[in-house]
């Protein structure tokens, strides 16, 4: 997030990046994953307005695994609203072309700093702690 200002040293707040769908739209899959993981590894929380495609989620898990290291980075916590019908959509939807991203708000953070307290179709409640 080059445009964002950096907190002063000693500021122990938690930074949250709210990334619009428009900003993600122009990025390649690996650029999106890099953007997310670079922020999360810095201890930031990332909120994606429109989420990732299943293929990108798969690669996010894979790349996250390659970056885990003891006493440094233990992985990510990721939450999206469950789809009302996670069955790949209706027949009509399928023949018209599936929207794989389904524009789902997604919250991603460092596994050791974010804990999901509650999740249902309409609400995600998370507890975020400082590093």
């Amino acid at each position, binding site marked *: 997030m080059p445009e964002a200002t950096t907190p002063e040293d000693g500021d122990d707040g938690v930074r949250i990046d709210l990334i619009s769908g428009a900003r993600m739209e122009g990025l390649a899959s690996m650029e999106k994953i890099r953007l997310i993981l670079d922020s999360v590894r810095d201890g930031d929380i990332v909120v994606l307005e429109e989420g990732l495609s299943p293929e990108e989620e798969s690669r996010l898990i*894979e790349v996250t695994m390659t970056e*885990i290291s003891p006493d440094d980075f*233990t992985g990510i916590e990721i939450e999206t609203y469950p*789809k009302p*019908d996670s069955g790949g959509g209706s027949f009509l939807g399928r023949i018209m072309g599936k929207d794989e991203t389904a524009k789902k708000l997604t919250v991603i953070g460092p596994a*050791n700093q974010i804990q999901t307290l509650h999740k249902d179709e309409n609400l995600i409640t998370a507890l975020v702690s400082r590093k």
Partner: protein
Amino acid sequence: MGLLTNLRESISGLFSESEPKRIGIYGPPNAGKTTLANRIARDWTGDAVGPESHIPHETRRARRKENVEIERNGKTVTIDIVDTPGVTTKVDYKEFLDHDMEKNDAVKRSREATEGVAEAMHWLREDVEGVIYVLDSTTDPFTQVNTMLIGIIESQDLPVLIFANKTDLEESDVKRIADAFPQHETVPLSALEGENMDEVYAKIAEYFG
């Protein structure tokens, strides 16, 4: 030489329909994937696939058992079973310390576990032709990993069966799993006790035959 190679490829292409399908056994850690893989392999080949354990991430490499012939209702289905490491988005070596493991061993196990998860994701994208998704029916199925993995499987249009495992335990709640993924068939079973395996094999033959 090139001609011979082309001929061989053409001939093998003619018979590709009869080649065993690679069926990946997926799910979160400790759902009983290896117990199920061993149950299927022992029932039909006499051999096991790999060691089972209550400690998470016992399976840290994808393991394939080839040419497992399953007979049901006069029909024979031949599949390769691919037992995969449990998928997660986080691995902390400290959780292994709770299982009386030394730090060095715990760190080594966590490193192998992360490699295994990455490997499992690669297999899912590239190398499996059907999925058995195993869930522990005593735990909440509404997790992000389950939601994401089912979404990934659906996006690839792979045939998938959901197995609600551990029905031998009192807290088992198969309906909760069926309600979580109503778009897929849920089959209850206890891989450990061998409960409901007739239906398991009938569904494997139906879905992957």
